[in-house]
Every structure is written in structure tokens, then in C-alpha cells.
């Protein structure tokens, strides 16, 4: 009897002994494995599928190559992507014709797909044709670089590929380095295409057939992706394969658990912790925290310029001078970011042609009351302030401060917390008068921001501004080859922004990458995810 009772105990001990014995081998493979934890999930292996998540983008960067990729530069001592430096990925080199209308790519001779077949210009053509013609996300993105039709892509010989542009568009080449224009093994993809699905969209969702640095080992949507190194890949900066033999991308929904995992050394890197956790992890000093201002993103407090009373410019100005910027910055972000308020403009003109830019606004209740009087509403009004549940950790404290401060000039604010899908629906239908949202641009040039976020009756024009001068200037700047003139346009756009005050830019939050001290090479990327190919272990 007694012995039988002890059975589980012995087997437990036995298992422990076995575990301990296996430890050295495990430790070895652990050092060569990168474990990345995230609150979001990977839902497709093809980033082009409508609805794909940012985590899916990050995985696709490792499994697929593009023709070109962005270089990197240092910004305040931290590595970030460099929009102005485009280097070859599958292309060994590229030439741009003098009239800027033709780009010729020379493919690498040694590039092979993961099944061992060589990458040819035909594959490139099929992949880019797919990106501009199939119902995929790449279509809208490539449009911003004047890449709209399959006729623009021409195979010269198996290793030479040519892109023709209708206009000299500065963003054509950078667009080919974004997430969507992946180069797919067209033979395999075509073999799995069907009559209803000639571009193999549903097949590629679950199969990655690229030439990238990592091969998918297992893919469980919403749980984890495990990838192993493609030994033949040599497109990394030092012409070697990627460092880690294995990469595990795992979904861990609870931010506190993610923080624990990294702190205990069970996970190597994460980028979506809560600001309060980052603060305490940083002060303990056992982990490396790299904070990079997301210089291609902005958080706004937006006002719908077509809904009264926000159609009145003086109301918008009153709100702009009644917000407690410093307190909000501390309460929402713990000061982790770049403020876009409190600038000083000596002659009342913008000092930079770049966007986003710091504006000379600060909390000044007297000024706010004057503007409110000028708007004919000295006693204030009532409105609602909305934010989505997904951003609650930063938006909730912010909303409380907005409410408190606006109450002091007589504006009564009701706070409305909306589920994410509901919020995006209402923004799309232009029904929210007053809310907070953030934007990101992959290719952060001034005209791109203004064209996409300040023109037209579309979702991303949060403030619903319709200013003829702004629209015309932004369109003109798009194709402006002369740098000095482009800067003039940028200054003009920024001046209009400040004068009209369609929405209030608050700050650029930091991307806080928390990682084990042994991890090196982290670079802030345009897609705001970790590019696993950048990382090494010391």
C-alpha cells in the first residue's frame, strides 16, 4: 500500500532527474533561440491578406524578402530605420534613370527560395503583379508610390527587372521596401492557385514560400509561430545568415505576465509592456530597455471640424489652450515619448518643414476663455470624449484630465469608452465629435502625412478637415523634385495646420523594447515590430 502511494512521487523525482540531465543540451539550444512574447497574435503568413495583424507583418519580414529594404541610422544614440537609405535585399543593386521614371533592379545571382530553386525576375513580376491587382492590402499601399498596374513591371532577363513610373514619384522605391511587396515563389504559388483564387491568397495565408531568413516550422494562429533559420540566406548586413537558429513568437495576452517572463529570462524581448511596468523594470536595471520615440507616429486629440461646436475655429483653439499637456504626458505615458506641445516659435512661424512638429501651445486657461468668448460660447457647452478600450491604459488617465481641465472653462465632457471595432466604425462614419486616436505612417514624409490624414472624406481624416489650400499644397509637394521647394511647401502646410487647429497633436509615444541584456542589434522599424533578423546574442 505504502509503496503504491509513493509511485507518483518517484515518477516525479525521476522526471526531475531527467530534466536536470537534459539541462546542458537545453541551455545550448536556448541560447540560440530567440523567444519573443507579444500581446497581439499572428493570424496569417501572407501580410497582404485583409485583416492581417502587425505581428503577422513582423513574421513576414523574416520569411519573405523584398527587392529592397531600409538602411538604419542613429537617432539620439538609438538605431532606427532610415527612409533615405534604400539598400538591396533580393536586388543586388538598382539604377534610377535620370528622368526618375525608370528603376532597374539587378537581382542577386545567389538568391534561392527556401525550396532551393533560384529567385528569378519572373517571380518578382508575378509577386508585384499580385500586389497591385489582387484584392490585397498591398494595392492601397503601392498606390501611394504610383505603382498601380502590372504594365509597369517588366522582365528584362532572368536577373534584371524594370519598373516604369508615370511620374517621378519619390515614394516608389521606398514603397517596395514596405511590408506588402513580398517576393513569392511563383511556381509553387501558381501550382496552388485555383480558378476562383488565381493569386493563391487563401493558400498563401497558411504557407510561406519565400526566400527569407527564416523558415516556418509551426504556425498556430493566435498562439505561436516557430521558425528555424534558413542557412542559405545571406541578405543580412554582414552577408551572413541570421543569428538565431530558432525564433519563437508567442502570444501572451497579459502584460504583467509578459513583464514577468522577460524579467525571469524566459523570454528574450518584448515591445508591448505597460508604461508602469517598464518604469519599474528600468529602475531595477537587470534588463535592457531601449526607448525610441516612434518618429513616424502621432497621438492626437481630434475634433470633428464638421460637427458643431467644433466647426468653429475659436472653439478648437479654446480646447487647444485648455488641455493640461504636461500632466497628461506624465499620467498617460509616464513621460515616455516626445512631446509635440510647448514649442516656442519666435516669429510665429513653423520652424520645421517636417511632420509631426511641435506646436507652440500650452495650458493657458485665460487665453482659452477668450477664444471661447470669441466663439460666442462664454459659458461653454457639453460634448463627449471617446477613446477605445485597446488604448485604455494611456487614454483613460488622459480622458480624466481632459474632462477636469475643460470643466474649468465651462466645457462639460462625458467620457465614452468604446470597444475597438465600435470606435473604428464610428470614426469611419464621422460620428465622433471629440476623441483621441493615433496614426502611423510607414513612409513618414510631410506630404504623405497631409495627403493621407488631412484630405478627403475618408476614415483617416479624423478631423474631417476640408481645406482647399492644404489639399493643393500637399498634392503639389508629392511630385516636387526640388528639395528647397519641398521644404517651402512643408512649412506652408505646417503653418496652415497651426492656424486651423483641426486637431491637436499631443506627442509621439516611445516604443519601449525590453530585452535581456545579452540581446544586441535592436532597431526601431517602420512597422513598429521587432525585425528578428536584426538581433544577436552576445
Amino acid at each position, binding site marked *: 500500500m505504502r509503496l503504491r502511494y509513493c509511485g507518483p512521487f518517484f*515518477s*516525479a523525482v*525521476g*522526471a526531475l532527474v*531527467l530534466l536536470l540531465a537534459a539541462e546542458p543540451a*537545453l541551455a545550448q*539550444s*536556448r541560447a540560440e*533561440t530567440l*523567444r519573443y*512574447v507579444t500581446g497581439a*497574435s499572428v*493570424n*496569417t503568413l501572407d501580410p497582404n*491578406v*485583409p*485583416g*492581417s495583424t502587425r505581428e503577422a507583418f513582423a513574421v513576414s519580414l523574416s520569411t519573405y524578402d523584398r527587392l529592397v529594404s531600409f538602411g538604419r541610422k542613429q537617432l539620439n544614440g538609438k538605431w532606427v530605420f532610415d527612409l533615405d537609405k534604400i539598400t538591396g535585399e533580393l536586388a543586388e543593386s538598382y539604377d534610377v534613370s535620370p528622368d526618375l521614371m525608370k528603376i532597374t533592379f539587378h537581382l542577386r545571382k545567389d538568391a534561392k527560395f527556401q525550396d532551393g530553386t533560384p529567385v528569378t525576375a519572373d517571380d518578382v513580376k508575378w509577386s508585384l503583379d499580385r500586389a497591385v491587382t489582387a*484584392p490585397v*492590402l498591398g*494595392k*492601397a*499601399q503601392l*498606390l*501611394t508610390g504610383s505603382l498601380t498596374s502590372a504594365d509597369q513591371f517588366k522582365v528584362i532577363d532572368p536577373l534584371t527587372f524594370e519598373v516604369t513610373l508615370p511620374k517621378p514619384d519619390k515614394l516608389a522605391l521606398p514603397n517596395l521596401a514596405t511590408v506588402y511587396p513580398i517576393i513569392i515563389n511563383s511556381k509553387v504559388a501558381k501550382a496552388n492557385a485555383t480558378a476562383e483564387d488565381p493569386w493563391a491568397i487563401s493558400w498563401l*495565408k*497558411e504557407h510561406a514560400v519565400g526566400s527569407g531568413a527564416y523558415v516556418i516550422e509551426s504556425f*498556430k*494562429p*493566435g*498562439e*505561436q509561430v*516557430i521558425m528555424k533559420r534558413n542557412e542559405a540566406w545571406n541578405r543580412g548586413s554582414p552577408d551572413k545568415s541570421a543569428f538565431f537558429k530558432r525564433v*519563437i513568437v*508567442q502570444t*501572451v*495576452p*497579459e502584460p504583467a*505576465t509578459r513583464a*514577468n*517572463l522577460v*524579467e*525571469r529570462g*524566459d*523570454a528574450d524581448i518584448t515591445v508591448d509592456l505597460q508604461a508602469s511596468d517598464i518604469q519599474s523594470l528600468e529602475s531595477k536595471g537587470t534588463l535592457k530597455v531601449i526607448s525610441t520615440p516612434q518618429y513616424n507616429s502621432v497621438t492626437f486629440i481630434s475634433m470633428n471640424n464638421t460637427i458643431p461646436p467644433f466647426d468653429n475655429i475659436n472653439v478648437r483653439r479654446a480646447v487647444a489652450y485648455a488641455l493640461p499637456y504636461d500632466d497628461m504626458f506624465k499620467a498617460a505615458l509616464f513621460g515616455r515619448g516626445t512631446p509635440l506641445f510647448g514649442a516656442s516659435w519666435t516669429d510665429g512661424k513653423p520652424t520645421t518643414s517636417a511632420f509631426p512638429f511641435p506646436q507652440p501651445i500650452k495650458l493657458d486657461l485665460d487665453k482659452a476663455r477668450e477664444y471661447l468668448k470669441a466663439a460666442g460660447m462664454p459659458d461653454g457647452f457639453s460634448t463627449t470624449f471617446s477613446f477605445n478600450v*485597446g488604448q485604455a491604459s494611456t487614454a483613460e488617465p488622459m480622458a480624466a484630465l481632459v474632462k477636469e481641465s475643460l470643466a474649468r472653462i465651462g466645457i462639460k465632457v462625458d467620457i465614452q469608452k468604446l*470597444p*475597438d*471595432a*465600435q470606435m*473604428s*466604425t*464610428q470614426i*469611419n462614419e464621422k460620428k465622433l465629435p471629440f476623441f483621441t486616436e493615433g496614426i*502611423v*505612417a*510607414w513612409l513618414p514624409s510631410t506630404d504623405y502625412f497631409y495627403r*493621407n490624414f488631412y484630405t478627403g472624406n*475618408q*476614415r483617416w481624416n479624423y478631423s474631417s478637415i476640408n481645406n482647399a489650400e492644404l489639399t493643393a499644397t500637399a498634392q503639389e509637394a508629392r511630385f516636387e523634385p526640388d528639395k528647397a521647394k519641398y521644404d517651402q511647401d512643408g512649412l506652408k502646410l505646417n503653418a496652415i495646420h497651426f492656424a486651423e487647429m483641426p486637431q491637436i497633436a499631443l506627442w509621439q509615444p516611445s516604443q519601449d523594447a525590453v530585452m535581456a541584456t545579452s540581446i544586441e542589434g535592436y532597431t526601431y522599424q517602420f512597422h513598429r515590430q521587432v525585425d528578428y533578423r536584426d538581433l544577436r546574442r552576445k
Partner: protein
Amino acid sequence: MSSLPALFGVLVFTFLLMRVLPGDPAVFFASGPNAGKEEIEVIRKQMGLDKPVPQQLLLYLYDVGRGNLGRSLMTGQAVTTDLRDRLPASLELTLTALLIALVSAIPLGVLAALKPGSVIDHGVRLFCALGVCVPTFVSGLLLIYVFYYLLGLAPDPTGRIDVFTSLPPSRTGFLTIDFLLAGDLDGWWAAFRQLILPAATMALFVIAPLARITRASMLVSLGSDFVRTARSVGLSWWRIVVTYALRNAILPVITIAGIVFSTMLGANVLVEKVYSWPGVASYALDALLSSDYAPVQGFVLLMASIFVVVNLLVDVLYGIADPRVSI
């Protein structure tokens, strides 16, 4: 069979409810940096939302009839596949938790009933009150903090199995059983270690109703005539308490356990989130937040079916506990 109309009602109700909710999944999923009107339309068409609601409902019912619950935009998989992958995880967790809860609640309830008003009784009451009033995500985080973070005894709370352990061939979907079937004891131990903390977290929360109901019905049966008779004829203490009193007291406990089980399965979303457990509840919550219709509908249908099965099971157990009951 008689539960089919109820299931049908649930199906239609959920379908309509999802459409009434003010969130447009197409807009949400077309959230790429450049998604415009065109992308929204593509998704809407893909989901069949461009058709009028009655027609959508008919199409949906037709699909469900053929065993197709639609496709999730969130995971990109068929809902049936998702649910089939995730249900065993939830069931394994819930069953283990229920087992832990029953094994601890029934003795606690019996002890409390044997000495009402004693220190033990008050101790059990305090324990139950604590278990109920601490929300599961608090107790979950607390357990993780103590056993994983401070003591390092528990494995990292990320799902059903350590990422470095290879999985056994899937037969039942219950990892602890699959590992045993495959004869892999190391694997079994790894899976068991992952399971124990979340199961304990859930068990803590449901021990209270089970222990309280055991105590109450034990008090009734201990005070009844047959127990007095048994005592007077000098039967052993064990026989009186377990064979006569407890067997008669167990009926309400079974009922409550059935209800507790169904609630746990759907409501363990917080535990699943805290422990990154790939179960159905956290799946349904994510789907609901992003207005992904098909998974939510599929989940509700699944829960309703499970509820029907559990009720049936409870009735069968009644018959075993009390031969006078016939189904």
C-alpha cells in the same frame, strides 16, 4: 432531441445580436495603414455582409446545417477548426479545476457540517469567502507572482506546454492524457506542471459554492431520522457519515457542480488570459472585441450544446446517486 429548438433559438438570437451591436468588423479589420473604402468593401463581401440580414441568416443556417460555422477573420481559420483546437484546452483546464474543487470542497463542507459553529466551520467559511471575493485574475496573478516569479517552482505561465517540449500525437486533445498514451512521462510532467496553477486559480473561485452547498445539505441529512437511527444502532462513524449522510446529501452538490462546470467553461476567460491558455473563452472574447461574428456565434452554439450535454450528464448522475430518480 428535445433541446434542438432551444439550440436553434440560441443560434438565431446570437446571430441577430451580433448584427445589432454597433461595431463593423469590416472597418475594424481593414485597419492597415492604408486601408480605405475599397478594402472595407472587400472584407464586407468576404464576410457576406453586403447581403441583407435575412439572407445572411438563411445562408448561415444552411452552413451550420452542413457543419460549417464560418471563418474567423481574426485567426484566418475556419471556426470549427479553431474550436476543435481550443476546446480540449478549455475542457482539460475546467475538468481539472472542477476535480480539485470537488476534492477539496466536499471534505471541507462535510467537516464544517459535522461541527457547525466550531472553529473549523468558521475557518471554512472564511476560506470560501476569500475564494469568492478575490477575482480570478487577481488570484491568478498572485499565484504566478509567488510560484513562478518569486519561488521559481512553477513553469512560465504561457499556455499548455513549454515551447521547447515536443507535442505528443494528438488523440484526445487532452495533453495530459495524450502524453500518457504516448508513454512520455517527461512530457506528461511538463503538461501537468503547466496545468496545475491555472486549475488551482479556477478551483479557488468555485470551492465556495460547492463547499457551502455540501455543508447545507449535509446538515439536513445529518439531522434526519435515518441518521439518528443509524447512530442508535451503533454503526461506525465513517459508515454513517459517508454511506448514509453524504450519499443523501450529494444530489444538490451534483446539480451545483453541473452548473458550476458550464459557467466555468465560459467564464474562465480571465484565467485563460492571465495564463495565456489557448482556450475557447479567450478566443470568444477577442472575437467579440473585434466584432468578428462567426467565432462568437460558433462559441455560443458550442456552449449551448455543452450545457445540454452537461444537463444530461447531471441527470444520469442523479440516477446513480439516487436509484429512485429515473430519467
